[in-house]
């Protein structure tokens, strides 16, 4: 991949990114995909916590402590959808077969959502403990960590691709 390929990568990446974000903001997509998915994340977080902490309640997009009443609502921007879109744009922009791309997107989606569940649960407990720390970690640290996760997934995918290419070249 030369510098011209890098420019091409950034161009395709930007086009796909803007297209997918426009699609994500479209009301029917919000209503039928993003909102139900966000609600599912809250239920999954509660299901993970329930065996360890019976004090946790989940309804809709909301997670709440029964005793203190502290609650978090999982909103757009907290559901990992944006990070997944970034990963999809990067994977689509990089030359590979569609089979490899789809595998990377599916694997990456699960990696992002696994970390996102850690984010939601950690923020839920942090908020109950200290609201100032919660705000700082929620607004600044976790977005960077989630995007670092996207970068790591993408780097691992690139390494896999370059190894595949090497193996194919050696076999030939």
């Amino acid at each position, binding site marked *: *991949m030369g510098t011209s390929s890098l420019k091409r990568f950034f161009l395709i990446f930007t086009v796909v990114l803007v297209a997918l*974000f426009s699609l994500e*903001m479209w009301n029917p997509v919000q209503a039928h995909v993003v909102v139900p998915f966000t609600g599912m994340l809250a239920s999954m977080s509660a299901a993970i916590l329930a065996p360890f902490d019976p004090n946790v309640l989940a309804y809709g997009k909301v997670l709440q402590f029964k005793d203190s009443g502290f609650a978090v609502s999982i909103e757009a921007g907290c559901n990992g959808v*944006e990070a997944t879109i*970034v990963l999809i744009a990067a994977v689509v922009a990089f030359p590979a077969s569609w089979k490899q791309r789809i595998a990377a997107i599916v694997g990456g989606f699960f990696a992002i959502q696994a970390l996102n569940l850690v984010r939601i649960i950690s923020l839920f407990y942090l908020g109950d403990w200290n609201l100032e720390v919660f705000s700082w970690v929620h607004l600044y*640290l976790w*977005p960077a960590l989630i995007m*670092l996760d996207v970068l790591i997934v993408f780097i691992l995918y690139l390494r896999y691709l*370059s190894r595949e290419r*090497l193996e194919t070249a050696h076999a030939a």
Partner: protein
Amino acid sequence: MQPDNALRQFLLFAFVLLLPCFALWTVAAQPLAMPVVGLADLLLGAWFPSVVESLSFHGGDVVLMTAFGELDGKPVLPGQSEYQLGFSINPGILSYSFPFYAALHFATQKKEYLWNFLTGVMVLYPLFLVGVLSLCLKELMLGLGPLFLDLPDSFIPNANVIALFYQLNVLIIPTIAPIALWLWQNWDTPLLRGVFGREPEAEEEAKTLLR
């Protein structure tokens, strides 16, 4: 250094450096935002002279003060209310791109650090400004509604354009720009040569000479 070791070292250093970089940024966030807030104040004042009165620091917060007032919870024209309507702006949700970039930058093994870093910061500043403008536009759109969107004497972008600009410049760019910048600046480091499956620099140069 072997590509695998370079990658492991980068990942370890990136995670280790993330927290101190963010801690330093927390201390320096206000002075870091000052030039951008000042410039955004000038631009917004010139763009919407009949709407925006100022964008300035009030203690630790940044407030976008409008020329409109508030009556019964609704924005009203100036003169119909005793209170001025202002919106709180948090530049931190944009400027955290600086510590994120710093962590990625200093976690990568390379020959030159400081000049590259300063160049990167200079690239991030205009994006920070665009982010603040997008944030202010969104606040004006949601807070003032038709009073802002139907202004006769200024060019107001379409509501969907403002929403998309907000989504991209506030929610996405602060995390993507540092990564894109890092990729661009470290393209020839052993780490990225290894990741992208490119030959080491010396071998590539030798091949060019042979041609």
